[in-house]
């Protein structure tokens, strides 16, 4: 036992005091847990820039932002990816980023450039929509609801599950969509009716999708779940036996989906500014943008990127996604959630 302790102590010292090899510069990228990328794509960047990229995964978007804000004075990383439009104002007011007017910005449509100061640059977007179980609807001869108001009809009693906006990002997104549609305080009436129509509320996406949703492998009880527009495509891409069709689809009526945009920014105080800038350019570049859909199940902000087949076939893009300004969200978020909790949970 003593030998083991001695050995591990020595190893500890070595790892802590190993001299930095001269050569590749190191870049640390902090992301949320959902970040994924193809091996070769990252390696290509490393090769091209003589760099070594390491990632720090930090929980969901809120937890990651928290981490970044808490370590503002001594940042843990050089680049932070994962702030979305619901947290954008908060991140900007905390002052964790430094501005970078990347040349790649010129290619990105205006609607995604929510930060005029160019501290947070848009990378991808995704739509939070209601997914429905095609088989269930067919079997019970139900028509797919076309508008948010339809959800309060008795035909859909107890058929919808959503997540608590206080603890879940898609849950919050859906709430914001209803606020955009019904206005404040109109949305509360809507939610009250949903509640009376047997709405199921759970803590987070994993529970809603895999425990409650009948269209997933968890085979739950509700055929409608608040999820992502890309989830139907994922069902096909992540099946072990080839599927001819996706078992689910999204409902994309007007204001029924909420658009989430995700941003990347260079953390203030970074020691590797030029490399960080190159990485940001890389994330906005064609190769990474094309890699994102299959890895993270989001849409690239850069137009004219080739999407995977499954995306084209099974993922629907709403024509009228709901969006609210980041400032408005930051101002009212707490009170909206509190009001919602009172209307639905109590």
């Amino acid at each position: 036992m003593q030998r083991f302790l001695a050995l591990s102590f020595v190893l500890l010292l070595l790892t802590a005091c190993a001299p930095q090899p001269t050569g590749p510069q190191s870049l640390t990228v902090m992301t949320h847990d959902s970040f994924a990328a193809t091996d070769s794509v990252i390696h290509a960047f490393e090769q091209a820039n003589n760099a070594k990229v390491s990632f720090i995964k930090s929980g969901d978007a809120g937890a990651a932002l928290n981490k970044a804000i808490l370590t503002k004075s001594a940042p843990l990383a050089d680049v932070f990816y994962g702030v979305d439009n619901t947290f954008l104002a908060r991140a900007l007011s905390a002052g964790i980023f430094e501005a970078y007017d990347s040349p790649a910005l010129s290619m990105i449509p205006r609607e995604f450039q929510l930060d005029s100061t160019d501290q947070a640059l848009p990378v991808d977007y995704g739509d939070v929509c209601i997914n429905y179980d095609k088989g269930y609807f067919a079997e019970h001869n139900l028509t797919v609801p076309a508008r948010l108001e339809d959800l309060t009809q008795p035909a859909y009693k107890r058929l919808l599950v959503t997540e608590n906006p206080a603890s879940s990002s898609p849950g919050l997104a859906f709430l914001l969509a209803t606020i955009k549609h019904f206005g404040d305080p109109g949305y509360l009436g809507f939610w009250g009716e949903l509640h009376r129509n047997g709405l199921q509320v759970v803590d987070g996406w994993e529970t809603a999708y895999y425990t409650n949703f009948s269209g997933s492998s968890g085979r739950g009880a509700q055929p409608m779940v608040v999820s992502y527009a890309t989830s139907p495509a994922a069902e096909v891409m992540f099946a072990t036996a080839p599927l001819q069709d996706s078992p689910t689809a999204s409902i994309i009526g007007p204001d029924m989906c909420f658009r989430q945009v995700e941003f990347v920014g260079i953390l203030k105080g970074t020691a590797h500014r030029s490399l960080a800038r190159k990485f940001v350019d890389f994330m906005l570049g064609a190769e990474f943008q094309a890699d994102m859909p299959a890895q993270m199940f989001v849409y690239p902000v850069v137009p004219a990127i080739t999407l995977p087949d499954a995306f084209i076939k099974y993922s629907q893009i709403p024509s009228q996604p709901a969006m609210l300004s980041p400032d408005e969200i930051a101002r009212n978020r707490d009170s909206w959630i509190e009001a919602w909790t009172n209307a639905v949970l109590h």
Partner: protein
Amino acid sequence: MAPEQSGAGPHRASFWLRRGALWLLPLSFLAAFFFLPFIRILAFSLDAATLSAANLRVALATLGFTVYQAALSTLLTLAMGLPAAVLFARFRFPGRSLLHALTAVPFMLPTVVVAAGFNALLGPRGWANLALMRSFGLSSPPIAFVGTLGAILVAHVFYNTTIVIRLVEGALSGLDPKLAQAARSLGADAPRVWWRVILPLLRAPLLAAMLLVFLFDFTSFGVILLLGGPSFATLEVQIYIEALSLLNLPVASLLALVQLLFTIGFSVLYTRTAVRSRIQTAPRAAQSNRRRAATRVEWLFIAGAVLVLSAFFVLPMLALPLRSISRLDADRGDRTAVQAGLTTDYYSELFINRRNSIFYVPPIQAAANSLTYAGASVLLSLALGFPAAAALAKPGRLEKILDPILILPLGASAVTLGLGFIVTFGRWLVHPWMVPLAHTLVALPFVVRTLQPALASLPERLRQAAASLGASPFRSWQAVDWPIVRRATLSAAGFAFTISLGEFGATSLLTRPEYPTIPIAIYRFLSQPGGANYGQAMAMATLLMALTTIGILMIERLRLPGAAEF
């Protein structure tokens, strides 16, 4: 010639020095990795404005519910755990070791997996409801489980019964059988023997178990969130929401402070009660008492207890291995046309990096990571736990203050502590030793509580006899202390091992993406849709359960060279 008896100057100094030395290591560990980060985050985020009456009122109301569900859960856990401890301590029956190990498996399963299992059994489309609906022709599921207080309570019992079993079983098998015989000869029938003689003598381990179970339930997070649902808010859940969703650190810190103060008060109360309950009993060989059922009543008890325990601990978890080998994909894209069939696809899928993700880690690697962290945690906990337990074994005035301090990390907010770690350690956060350190914080109270009674029971006479026969202090320790303490050490190691394997919250905060543990890997799979993801999560969970069961069985069967079992 014990140091306590002498009053002379230099002896007194050396006595305090010895005592101080015993406490130095665990205390500095706690100071560095608990107090420092906690105080820093509180100081960082609390401000006068937050301490408003409204906030305090909400905090206290949340505290009320948290205490309520924890107290209820603890009582139910005792009700399940005490008969189970009797079963395992007193009787021999086929399958004993396996059932014993199985009661410990839940302790290290991530909540998301336990929730899936319970849901498969008791959810609206679970086996129980489907069976009932079919047999009685009901249109809607009769059992409402998920989203009720009942689910929270059941899950807590499911998780924590093993704590009661482990702490009480040892004490029970160490009891002198003559005491029960004396009681019987004085006219006490079996129930009265239990009530008046055996249970009072078990008061100390029962109290210790209650303390640990209560604190676990008090700071319970995953169970409340996933099985209770949004209608139930405990302090920890609120802290999580305030801190990580609403980014409202001041309120989160206030709640964390309330939680900590309550824990301090509670553990001080416990220490006072426990000290009074301490009864000296001589060490006994444990094996001698186990036997087969002798009377019909005993046979019924064994059969009943085994049935209940198997149903409770095995059924919910059966869903996981079953699902890991059944086809979970929709057939031809139509979910209602569910295909039957077994498959090992999900297991083989674990070894394929289908998307060539940079973060792919083969399951062997995740298992190895988990085991490495667990091993390090065991070593650390024992290294810190032994001196603390030795100091507590001979209690003095100092111990009354230090004992509650040791328990604190269990009753403190993990989320807040995590944030404290971020603020305090910065870049060191992702150092490989951080994870075992965090695990040790949680495991330490268990280790100390398991070791302490054994160390307290070491008879000075035996050591003196060994010394008079020429044994050096080390050989005396080896021949006298070690056999008595060995069993407790193994039990403590088992605790630390299982706690480390199943820890999720701290680990997700501290680990590097390239060294995921199994619970983290499971969580990763469940955060994306698709049959392959779900199936792999089930497969990993099954692997985790198998790994744990084997690990526990091995620890329990370990026959180290040495004297007789104690």
